[in-house]
């Protein structure tokens, strides 16, 4: 039995926030629908009112605001992957978006949906974590902005309130002293959920890594940075030995955060190997 609900399709943000104010817990917001359609088909969507935000033009933009890039939640993975602004100022996000699902999924699925659905395997989240992205949540009475790492409570759980809507994602544009990499491991190249994904950003000062940010997805309960490994890399001249050490530490941090499980035995070396590859790629050495 498919889920049943009433359907609303507000054409402005104000109208959407009114609906969420009035119906709160009884609503569910739909953007591209690539995740929700499965729940609807299975009869698992419990909302009385489905609020389709896809006809709100202002939520659809990618724009530059000073040195910030500001992305509306309705921007699709396909649009992110082909955006010149993203390619130039946040290529790690473009690559992450391009690894989602398949062309068809990328044409419908949105960055907002990827964030809100809060799957531990979401591909854009590690990229947003290393970009130190802020998410803005708005309700009729006002809005709040917070770092994306503070947004998650656990797998598929976030702090968003029933009357709130994610209205934008912002982060500082990166200049070309920043190098990056994004690696995803899944059963196949397309149409497969990430087993592990890794995003790396490194700010280079001549030969030295001034600042390094590493986040791995699908491997920790909530999105986070690998701070111990980042500390090892900070200020170092990237070498095979430093990268080896940092990769080992990331694998340890992953186990410390997610606990020892039956899968740990293969995940630990897999994480280590992939982080090594991601760091090598970011620093452009040893390939």
């Amino acid at each position, binding site marked *: 039995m498919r*889920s049943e609900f009433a*359907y609303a399709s507000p054409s402005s943000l104000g109208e959407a926030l009114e609906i969420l104010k009035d119906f709160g817990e009884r609503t569910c917001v739909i953007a591209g629908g690539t995740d929700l*359609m499965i729940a*609807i088909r299975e009869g698992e969507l419990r909302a009385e009112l*489905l609020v389709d935000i896809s006809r709100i033009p202002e939520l659809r933009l990618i724009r530059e605001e000073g040195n910030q890039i500001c992305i509306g939640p309705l921007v699709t993975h396909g649009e992110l992957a082909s955006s010149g602004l993203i390619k130039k100022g946040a290529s790690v996000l473009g690559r992450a978006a391009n690894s989602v699902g398949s*062309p*068809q999924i990328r044409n*419908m699925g949105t960055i907002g949906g990827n964030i809100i659905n809060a799957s531990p395997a979401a591909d854009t989240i590690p990229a947003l974590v290393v970009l130190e992205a802020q998410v803005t949540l708005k309700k009729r009475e006002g809005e709040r902005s917070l770092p994306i790492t503070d947004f998650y409570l656990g797998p598929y759980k976030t702090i968003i309130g029933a009357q709130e809507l994610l209205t934008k994602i912002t982060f500082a544009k990166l200049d070309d002293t920043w190098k990056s990499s994004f690696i995803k491991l899944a059963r196949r190249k397309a*149409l497969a959920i990430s087993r592990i994904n890794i995003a790396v950003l490194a700010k280079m000062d001549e030969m030295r890594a001034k600042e390094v940010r590493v986040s791995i997805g699908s491997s920790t309960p909530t999105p986070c940075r690998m701070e111990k490994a980042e500390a090892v890399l900070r200020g170092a001249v990237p070498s095979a030995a430093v990268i080896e050490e940092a990769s080992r530490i990331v694998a340890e941090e992953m186990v410390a955060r997610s606990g020892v499980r039956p899968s740990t035995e293969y995940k630990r070396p897999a994480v280590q190997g992939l982080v090594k590859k991601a760091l090598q790629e970011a620093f452009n050495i040893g390939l």
Partner: protein
Amino acid sequence: MKNIKISFVINGKKEEREIPPNISLLKLLRDHLGLTGTKNGCEAGECGACTVLLDGRPVYACLVLAPKVDGKEIITIEGIGEEGKLHAVQKAFLAHGAVQCGFCTPGMILAAKALLDERPNPSRKEIEDAISGNLCRCTGYLQIVKAIEASGKGGKGEV
């Protein structure tokens, strides 16, 4: 559940329908419009058999909530080529033996058409990326890739 009214352009023709808001575009096409050329494979966005073009872009009809197509344009396999005259991609699929059981074919052809509309002479890598969301369990893909390559090059789908 209250029905809603939507209007859209399907294969060049304007249509209006009253539908339950919880159905997929796939169901709208097959059960409400009788366009069964679009195949129902997995109904979970994993096989690509239901690929159609929504405002020119390939999407999985099973993952599109039908009310979302209000005001939009949809092209299905029935809408390419003309009566008695196949589209270049369809011809190339026949010429290259790219059709075996045929279940993935409508979706494959629409994914290919979307690519060719944007890039008339795609590279092999671009072709492989464009059909990466469409599974085929018979052909091994090589004939399909060759067919798309051929329809790109000559623009006529000749061998």
